[in-house]
């Protein structure tokens, strides 16, 4: 966050970039290869994307059910507003190596019915499958009904 925004934090709520960057720093990651854009792909209502920061910042090994609920609610809010382009953008950038398997499943299952409207959905599915395999988890079993 730059200095002027830091001094006016009440007036300027943190952007997605700020929130995710803070979360990632909190996890003491030395490098951050993925950045979310400052510009929103679609300009409409004010969005609450704190759920995304929570998803990325939560325990990589396992997420609490409270975190999963927050992610489901966040996704549903975007689906309700039909923000498929933004969802696709998020899905194309979300670092699957940093999120828990529960969050991976929540992202995919909550949006599965409209996956054709989210261009990056299939590539997220593939990335999740590879990541689960890399963690030694049974991807075929976990992704039942999706692959």
């Amino acid at each position: 966050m730059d200095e002027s925004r830091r001094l006016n934090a009440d007036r300027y709520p943190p952007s997605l970039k700020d929130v995710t960057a803070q979360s990632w720093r909190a996890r003491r990651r030395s490098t951050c290869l993925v950045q979310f854009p400052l510009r929103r792909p679609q300009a409409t209502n004010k969005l609450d994307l704190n759920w995304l920061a929570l998803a990325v910042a939560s325990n990589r090994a396992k997420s609490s059910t409270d975190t999963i609920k927050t992610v489901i609610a966040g996704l549903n809010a975007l689906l309700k507003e039909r923000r498929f382009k933004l969802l696709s953008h998020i899905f194309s950038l979300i670092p699957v190596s940093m999120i828990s398997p529960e969050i991976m499943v929540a992202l995919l299952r909550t949006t599965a019915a409209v996956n054709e409207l989210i261009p990056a959905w299939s590539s997220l599915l593939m990335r999740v499958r590879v990541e689960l395999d890399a963690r030694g988890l049974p991807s075929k079993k976990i992704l039942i009904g999706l692959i």
Partner: protein
Amino acid sequence: MVLASNEDRPFDDVDCLGVAACKVSPVYEGQNFGIHVALLYRTDGNPARLAHLAWHFLHHPGDPPDARFRWAQIPLDSINASFVASWLEDRWEKPELIPYGFSVTGDVWDQGTDTFIPPPCGEGLTCATFILGTMRHLRLPIVQEDTWPYNRAEDLTWQAGIINMLEKHGAAADHVAALKNNVGAVRFRPEEVCGAAILPDWPITFDDASTLAAEIVQLIGSCQT
């Protein structure tokens, strides 16, 4: 034992997601008892709850389980089980107006709002198809639906009994009239869905589900309550 009582194994022992069944009043003359089925779920720091469709427009998304129920763990992996439990918990205080019926076409939950999609007049869910529809919405099909038989004699009698009960309890005349046209729809019995939910390697075929269903009928039949 295929299903445990709360005394044998407390409901709160459920690891995110289970299935529960209990004995209910018979629906038609000659039937000894009926069976009701529900999803049993528990999230971090909360007690176990039941999500079920009890009757016409009686959706209970978060009931505390009572001693009548017997339950078993659903052998889903912990990742998907915690996701489903979270999804159910998110709406535990949001009962929906779900009509009772023998079939419903398409998804039952709206993608985006996750609220129930009112079906056309004469369509609706049972306690068993409520579970199937919810899990199907989450892309977790419990059963292989096309393996279920049509027009089993006992199912036709049961459907006629349900229509009588709906009429007696004052269901809308147009709903009941439309429901009569749906007699003969494939029926997923509560004990079959309960049995399928307990088995590993979904989706489960009718043959596999019905084997365990027979055990469940025997067990529930022997229960005093």
